[in-house]
């Protein structure tokens, strides 16, 4: 049963990810992103990480809506992208960078399979409660990784202030 659900969800996830990249209509692309992220949330659920799954849904539902608004305000809604690509050089860079990322993921996976590689599952700290549950996430965030957690919040604050400054200068 779990394997069947996994296969269906995985196929939908991959298909929607492909559609997201291949569709020329930005709104359709964003909608496929919703499907894809939903599938990833279900995968988290299958792994027993309920908190992660629901946090993913809460955060990305909002984030994607903002993306929609930007897609409408910045791009011309309803029209396909036409004409020569202004960012041609970036497209050429994409292939080697993508390959590099793929290599990295493969290395991490291989490391975790052979036990105790870089950032593999074996090197995760063991907590008394089930990993991925709300209690273990809370313990890790506010215990072992408290410093990193707080530093992230400062980073986000800096981003917020930066956005405010940029927006203010434009409106004057």
């Amino acid at each position: 049963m779990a394997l069947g659900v996994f296969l269906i969800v995985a196929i939908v996830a991959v298909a929607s990810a492909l559609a997201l990249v291949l569709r020329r209509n930005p709104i359709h692309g964003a909608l496929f992103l919703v499907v894809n992220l939903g599938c990833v949330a279900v995968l988290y659920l299958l792994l027993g990480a309920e908190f992660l799954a629901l946090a993913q849904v809460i955060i990305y539902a909002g984030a994607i809506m903002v993306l929609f608004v930007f897609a409408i305000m910045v791009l011309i809604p309803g029209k396909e992208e036409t004409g020569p690509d202004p960012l041609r050089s970036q497209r050429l860079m994409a292939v080697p960078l993508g390959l590099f990322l793929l290599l990295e993921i493969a290395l991490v996976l291989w490391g975790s399979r052979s036990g105790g590689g870089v950032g593999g599952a074996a090197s995760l700290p063991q907590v008394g409660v089930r990993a991925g549950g709300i209690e273990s996430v809370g313990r890790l965030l506010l215990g072992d990784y408290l410093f990193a957690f707080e530093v992230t919040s400062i980073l986000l604050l800096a981003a917020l202030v930066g956005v405010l400054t940029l927006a203010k200068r434009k409106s004057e």
Partner: protein
Amino acid sequence: MIRHVITAFVLLNAIVLIVTYLTYVERKFAARMQSRIGPYRVGRPHGWLQPIADALKLLIKEDIVPALADRPVYNLAPIVFLIPSFLIFATVPFAPGLGLADLNIGLLFFLAVSSLEIVGLFMGGWGSNNKYALLSAMRAVNQIISYEVPFVLTALIPVLLAGSLKLSLIVEAQRGLWFVAYPVIGQLAFVMFLLATIASENRVPFDILEAESELVAGFRVEYSGMKFALIQLAEYTHMFGVSCLGALLFLGGWLGPGLPGPVWFLLKALFIFLLVTWVRWSFVRIRVDQILGLSWKVLLPATLALLMATGFWVALRSGHVA
């Protein structure tokens, strides 16, 4: 498995029935407030068949799709809008043991699924290929995302007091005293919860996204017949779901003397629904900047402060702070 399917089927139909009659309650209530009688002709006494007649009428009406609509998005939108509204009831316990799935993280599930509603709304607004619908969808994104934060923060206050995200445990923690009756914290949190509810349900005075005097009917302006009925059903179901959440978080769910648990629970949910309706028919619409200002400048700092105060109080009570 079979048991779950049957429970889900019964629950779905019960909710559809309740929600259909909520529209009737709202119309009668609004009529009372305006010294009218309200629906009276269909069914005796007091036009009690009116919701059924409305539903049947909408079912047999012609379905019109605008020529320039983005067809797949336009057609999918009502369904995407409807599914989360019903899914939120999956974790709602109507009485001890009476509910579909009382998850450990029930409240989080409720909040996550309920936040998906905006996707359907936006699809409707964009797929219609109509200026008014699109403007409405853009406003909806602003407003709902702004009010999501205070809404979640107020919902966390009962979680702090009860020490659990499981909805049935939150209710059990109120056995001595309902959370709304906790001095100062309870009342403030309840009022803020109501405000955030009204705003995230886009009801007057926060209904800029359907503002009939400027945007006709907002994102659903192009919808007709069955699809319109689905959108209306989804809106009222969501409203009822959030009223149930309010009853669970602040009014002690099924707890109460005399009457059986589910009756108490539905009465409390109805009470919150009527409070929201009361506000709806009493105030005028406020401007976009006032709505967003209220969320970010007033409600967000206030809920944060209240959450911290509650946390401090809980720590003090349990003796963690010397």
